[in-house]
């Protein structure tokens, strides 16, 4: 073997080890949680409300709460995020104003989630008088998801070749027709990926829902958007730190359910993306 080949081999080995180093903690965490929690995840656990000071029973209201919050977040942030990105990429002129918007979007995605939580509490719960409610929580989570959705959509739109737009416009199509028929169909995979990633992140967040929606203990299901709900991440926090003599297996089981829920969402996005990829022909 000559020197160049040896060097290449060494470099590949090092890169491989680094990759392993990144993947390992994730895999170990999942294995550890699964090992300690899997035995507790029974049909009863996922379909029954908690009992006896949450030390027994299941986590059904928290599962439903998290799903409701994901849907609420999606309803709010999806249209707003995608439309903003379309505006920024396809319509906005490059001037100080749009550059400031773009900069803000980038910066907003770096803000700690507890800040969003406090902001949501001040604006939605107190000022707009929504109270601690699904509405306030969904809006807060939605605002937190917006920057990621906007960035992902922007990138997906920008990867569509400029020639597609030129062809369409040159045939006399309007700007919106061009976007509708020649840009969006080819950027849907990218938009989906970014959206689902940000929603699954929202599903696992505790800080933004802490003051805006999450209930400590509420075994019944919500009646309206102004109701509080339990949510998996907050429930996990509560049983892991706030309740004395709580069997640890319950925390692990709750964590496992949350991981599986997020994993399922990502799986859906992978399937959708593969489905749309097949149509992509350039």
């Amino acid at each position: 073997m000559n020197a160049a080949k040896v060097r290449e081999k060494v470099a590949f080995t090092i890169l491989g080890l680094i990759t392993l180093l990144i993947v390992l903690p994730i895999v170990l965490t999942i294995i550890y949680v699964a090992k300690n929690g899997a035995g507790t995840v029974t049909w009863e656990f996922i379909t029954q409300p908690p009992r006896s000071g949450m030390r027994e029973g299941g986590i059904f209201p928290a599962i439903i709460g998290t799903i409701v919050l994901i849907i609420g977040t999606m309803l709010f942030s999806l249209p707003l995020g995608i439309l903003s990105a379309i505006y920024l990429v396809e319509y906005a002129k490059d001037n100080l104003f749009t550059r400031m918007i773009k900069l803000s979007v980038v910066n907003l995605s770096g803000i700690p989630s507890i800040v969003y939580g406090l902001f949501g509490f001040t604006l939605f719960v107190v000022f707009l008088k929504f109270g601690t409610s699904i509405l306030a929580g969904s809006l807060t989570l939605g605002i937190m998801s917006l920057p990621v959705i906007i960035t992902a959509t922007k990138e997906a739109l920008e990867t569509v070749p400029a020639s597609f737009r030129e062809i369409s416009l040159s045939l006399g199509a309007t700007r919106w027709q061009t976007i509708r028929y020649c840009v969006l169909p080819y950027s849907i995979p990218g938009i989906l990926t970014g959206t689902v990633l940000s929603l699954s992140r929202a599903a696992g967040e505790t800080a933004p829902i802490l003051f805006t929606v999450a209930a400590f203990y509420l075994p019944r299901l919500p009646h309206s958007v102004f109701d509080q709900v339990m949510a998996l991440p907050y429930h996990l926090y509560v049983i892991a730190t706030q309740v004395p003599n709580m069997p640890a297996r319950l925390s692990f089981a709750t964590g496992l359910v949350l991981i599986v829920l997020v994993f399922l969402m990502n799986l859906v996005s992978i399937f959708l993306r593969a489905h749309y990829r097949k149509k992509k022909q350039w």
Partner: protein
Amino acid sequence: MVAEPIIKTINLKCQYGPVTALKDLNIEINKNEILGIIGPANSGKTTFMRSLNRLNYLNPSYSQTGRIIFEGKDIKQIPDSQLRKKIGIIFALPQVLPISIFNNVAYGPKVHGITNKSVVEEIVETALKKAYLWEEIKDRLDLPANKLSGGQQQRLCIARTLAVEPDVILYDEPCSGLDPISTAKVEDAMRELKKYYTQILVTNNTKQAARVTERCGFFLMGDLVEIEETETLFTNPKDKRTDDYITGRFG
């Protein structure tokens, strides 16, 4: 008697930011002629063409002064989508959309609000026949358009433009990526289309201009140096720079 020109520019000046691409262009284009535009790179040929259907404005740094009159009207008074429907363009490289052959051609009629399926089918067939492509692909209209050869794709682009029923067709070096046989087919299509359309052909290939066009203009550094009957321009140019260019001494 000389008929009114279909397109006329008056003191047209085009700029990209501080860079002037066309200095002061006055040119008249007659109905149903094939006008050739030759000249070296950066001489303003493409800018001229794309100013006619306002495609230049897709570039945010573009600005222009002067007037362009199309069918007796200043093009500023015509909405973009109407203008571009009337003045179609064929780009340098065959650029098809990643959809079927049929849908490529049907795209234009669709955005202009034609929804009746049999009407669209008829438009597509007519357009493909006029572009000399129908016989080759009539059995596989559902095939993805980018499976076609380069020459077929370029004729598909012509058909796509024809499908919106323009009055003028602009060709921006339409054969620069094509082999000689495909080029000949595109040129045949152009000669045939002369009956119905006014055509402007920008080309780097002076021989092609000589073969296809009736009148020909020579652009250099943003100036229209000379515009003449093609035969005169190629055999007996008035300007020395034209002579140098077509005999291959520069450019």
